[in-house]
């Protein structure tokens, strides 16, 4: 493996929210910093930089990951989706509406990470709206404002409605 010099920029090519990008970066740049400061997409938030709080969660090749625990150099050739990307997804309008209705956010700082985690869970088409299961899924993201009550209710409602819709279709 060739030695990478920390002072020399390397080139990365990747897809962010459906758009192909190429950037030159220092090899040690954190993915979360890269998204926020090099790309300027600040919807991805940084709360702990040690992988606990989940505020920086993004989708990497279809799976939710912590962008604070990855280097930007690792995204070469891969696909990323951030909160700015899922905004365009009309299929998630129901989730955003449920978040508003159930007061699933207060200060909003953790919200991007929760939306990413939940959108990824909803993609698995859960058969039942099971509260225990949902709490387990959500436990990788920390919210300090809501006590999770509204977030759990929002996810329960979205799953129930989607499943009803499927049944009727």
């Amino acid at each position, binding site marked *: 493996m060739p030695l990478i010099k920390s002072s020399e920029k390397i080139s990365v090519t990747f897809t962010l929210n459906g758009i192909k990008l190429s950037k030159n970066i220092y090899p040690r740049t954190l993915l979360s910093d890269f998204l926020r400061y090099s790309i300027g997409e600040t919807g991805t*938030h940084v709360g702990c930089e040690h992988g606990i*709080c989940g505020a920086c969660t993004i989708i990497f090749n279809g799976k939710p990951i912590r962008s604070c625990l990855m280097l930007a150099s690792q995204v070469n050739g891969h696909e990323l989706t951030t909160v700015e990307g899922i905004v365009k997804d009309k299929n998630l309008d129901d989730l955003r509406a449920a978040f508003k209705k159930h007061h699933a956010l207060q200060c909003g700082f953790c919200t991007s990470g929760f939306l990413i985690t939940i959108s990824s869970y909803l993609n698995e088409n859960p058969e039942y709206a099971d509260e225990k299961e949902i709490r387990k899924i959500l436990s990788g993201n920390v919210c300090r404002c809501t006590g999770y009550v509204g977030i759990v209710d929002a996810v329960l409602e979205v799953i129930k409605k989607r499943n009803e819709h499927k049944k009727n279709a």
Partner: protein
Amino acid sequence: MNKDKKILMRPKYIGKPIERFEDSKYLSGNAKYTSDINIDKMLQLVFVRSDESHAKIKYIEYKEALKLEGIIDVLTFKDFSELNQITSPSRMSNYFATYQDVVAKNKVRYVGEIIAVIVAKNRYVGEDALELIEVDYESLDPVIDPEEAASNNKILLHENIGSNVILERSFSHGTKDYIKSKNIKSVSGKFKLSRKSPIAIENRCYLSDYDIGSGNITLYSSTQIPGVIRDALSKILGIAGNKINVKALDVGGGFGGKGSLYPEEIIVTYLSKKLKKPIKWTSDRLEDFLTTSQAFEEIIEAKLFFDDDGKFISLEGDVIGNIGAYSIFPWTGALEPVQVIGFLPGPYDIKNFHGNVKCVVTSKSPTGPYRGVGRPAAVFVLERLVDMAAKSISMDPFTIRMKNLIDTKNLPYRIGSGIIWNDAGFKECLEKSKNSNFFKEIIDIKNKKKCNRTWIGYGISTYAELTGIGSKISVAPGMPINTGSETATIEIDGTGSVSGIFAIASHGQGLETTLAQIIADEIGIKPEDIKITHGDTSKAKHGTGTYASRSAVIGGGAAIKTARVLRKKILKVAAYLLETDPNNIEIIDGIISSLNTNKSINFSELANSVYSDMETLPVELRDSLYAKESYDPIFGATTTATHIALVEIDKQTLKVKVLKYLVSEDCGKVINPMIVDGQVHGGVAQGIGVALLEKINYDNQGQLTTANLVDYKIPTASEIPKIDVVHTEHFLPENLGQFKGMGEGGTIGAPAAIANAVADALSDYNININELPVNQEYLFQLLKNGEIR
């Protein structure tokens, strides 16, 4: 149409669960937190922080760091010599202020204190430089244990004070004659509430932008108190207030941790002026653990006296509060411990009260305000004593509380520490909780779930708190800043749209929505048509911010007072335009109509006739559609609640799980029930953290050993149950709007309710729950001892 009928049709937005206007920006990733702002040519700061708890600084070597590309400068105390020290005065006698250099000069007093400042082109390079800087210390003995520090003057943290006790205060009410009484019974204990950290998910962040042309400074700050910060910076930097604009953009949670003045705020602002460059600092989580004001750490010895019937006779309490290294600005380090003793008598009729409090400095991070201030500790201690008293005379926990709670007809009531409770449904909240289906369910679960694998128990807590505090009472005892009033400005522009401007600073409370609901009802427009501005000292010239459950009460009161003045102006113009009397006009959802004709106008037409059209109105009626009023409720509003928790303890792992939770509360008139419930849920979740998980630990050398979110656990969705809320609305006639503060209550009631529930679950053992958090290690030690006994 008859007038009464028309009024009935007017929509009331207060009381409705209106979805928040703030939500869309957060849901789309478009909110702007301070760390999201980046300005061209901006420099970043990295701080060299003390890694010793108590030491003299011998020298700082940073030559190597200066050689790094991208390092602009490394600055030490001499570069900040023109700045005043941070000190927090108080009117309390026997109070000794501490003095903190913005950058430490000779001595450091906690791990994390700033020793030098690296100015770098970016954070990465700045952190490289940090590795190259050497600090040589002469270690001094750390000051760790507050009881020892209080009684031993050999090791002093602040030599000029001559003691480690910066305040001692006593309260005494009634007599001590009861000790001689034959029928007197008592329960007592030595209680401890561990130190904790507020942990907002957004770390603190400051960005100061100096405008070379005008000499104006804009400080973007993740603060709860922009007005207080502006005033303090003006004094410390010697710059006129109108040259400094403090802007709190979107703030990612506060909980008190962003409610004080920090050295980093001063340094960022000072350097941007000195270097004529935008300067930014973003805290990382380690720095947040080390330097954001911490909370609690109190040792409380208390004794409750009562008679055979369970009637309380007296309460005695002795509080030692470990406030950390410095007395924080503007609240002072007395804020928390003094209020622990102040709130100790609770909502009960107790004729005699004797209390003492000592505030002790130690070489740990400074403490400051945290959600609930003083009340979580006070309620934990008193409610444990109440349950212990009930158990000792085999009385039901509801009965003993009902017997001693202050009756509504005896309000206002002055408790032994001097706090006055006004209209609040103490007994009603308790009764409602007992009569709820929730309570039947938990008794059912408790009876059914009895098994070999777990212990199960329930606990209740009842408390009262003082919110929306007016100018007669200091939010922090003896504090020289008036926090008793707020100002609202409401204006209508040339297009007819309405703006409300406030000095409060919302950081999750939904005030952009609730203040719009209040103004909407007063004026007769739709809430979604009102733009609320807050957290910007250039827009609202005076006001302190959002803390101490005050914004809905005082900010909301100011909104009502101002809207009423503006409405009069509107009616005056409209009466001329509609050719009727102001009393014959109704305004519904932005349509201004005459009640005796069919004529109506909208706000755009109204504004046009006042501001643009120079023909319709006579000159004297073209007064700007603008009002600005201040509101001061003078006293405080009493909020009360009863909490009930059902917990289960795993016999193998000793892990406590909260199964069900109920809050029965009275916060006066509910502006938005969805938001009120949300505040309760969030508060309870933090209270569960206090009760079961959150513990800041320093070792005997003053090193923080819980400096990340793995070692310091905060609740996730798996630790928090569904939380039920029921409301009682007791009104306080003197207050505009009848609102009471309620954002802190969840955190006040939950630690006590859970402690009582754990004690109930373990009632077969001879143990006492007198320390929080009740984590597995604590229970293990306790049960080991309990079994031996």
